[in-house]
């Protein structure tokens, strides 16, 4: 089961897997924009632009 959400940037269709975890990154297949999935308290799904890679990112 997946859910489709509209890309805030280009209006493309982004597929969200049903077992998505808040904080996961999804990409718009049309424009390539990366979003972080935010699960709201009322069970809704919001997308916010993903953080851009910082110079201290890694392992």
């Amino acid at each position, binding site marked *: 089961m997946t859910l489709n959400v509209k890309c805030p940037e280009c209006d493309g269709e982004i597929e969200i897997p049903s077992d998505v*975890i808040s904080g*996961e990154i999804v990409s718009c297949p049309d424009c390539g924009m990366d979003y972080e999935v935010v699960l709201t308290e009322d069970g809704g799904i919001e997308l916010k632009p993903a*953080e851009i890679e910082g110079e201290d*990112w*890694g392992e």
Partner: protein
Amino acid sequence: MKEISLVYDRIRWEEKALIKAARNENVDLKLVDSKGVYIDTLKEPSKLKVDFGEVVIQRCISYFRGLHITATLESKGLYVINPFDVSLVCGNKLFTTLALVKAGVPVPKTLIAFTDEGAFKALKELGYPAVMKPVVGSWGRLVALVKDDDSARALIESRKETRNALLQIYYFQEYVERPPRDIRILTIGDEVVAASYRYSPSGDWRTNVARGGVSKPCPLTEEVRETALKASEAVGGGVLAVDCMESPYGLLVHEVNSTVEFRGLYSATGVDIARRIISYAVEVARR
């Protein structure tokens, strides 16, 4: 049992694997997105424990964010995996090298300089080719192979222009004659869990999986085990990935990672690393 949390800022493959492993082991793992939290430093530890539990698996992709969260939680008596001192040392390549040298773990010849002037002198002593790395950074980012004076000048000048304080610290290592691979060894506590070879992708000499490096299983020989445990102990222990190279004189450790990415290692060895990390957290929580 004390409550366990996972503190993150991005859900990578590894965080998903940890969440799944906790579910399979019937461990109630609290998920805390660090991007949305603030912590009052005067807050009673008992209030912090409501959100974070008492044992925290700190998995932030941003090193400084994770380090500061670890410092805060640890000062309130929470146990963080990995502890602050370990994260501090492992997050800085010079601090790691110093800890390894002190413990007698073999490392590549490493020189450190603090200005461009010192950097040129260090390179003169080390000779070419040399490897230049930022002291803080991961995934092979800005790791450069310096082949001659001209490329050295270009690299050092461009670092100077960035006005980034950390990039004014010059960390150089000898280029070790090695097969086109390095070895990653995962240690948890005093156990060696798995090891993989990481082969550099075509067109790059770096072996980082984040750069397209490919993982293959590596046998846990006595030398591999011993090197990994010594290196892990040298930086303070915990859940760690020890990276080393096969030099003509034996294994040389060049890095120890404290927020381990283990997707490549898992795909190469099939070892359920996520489950092992959760079990370790449970063991800590039972103490």
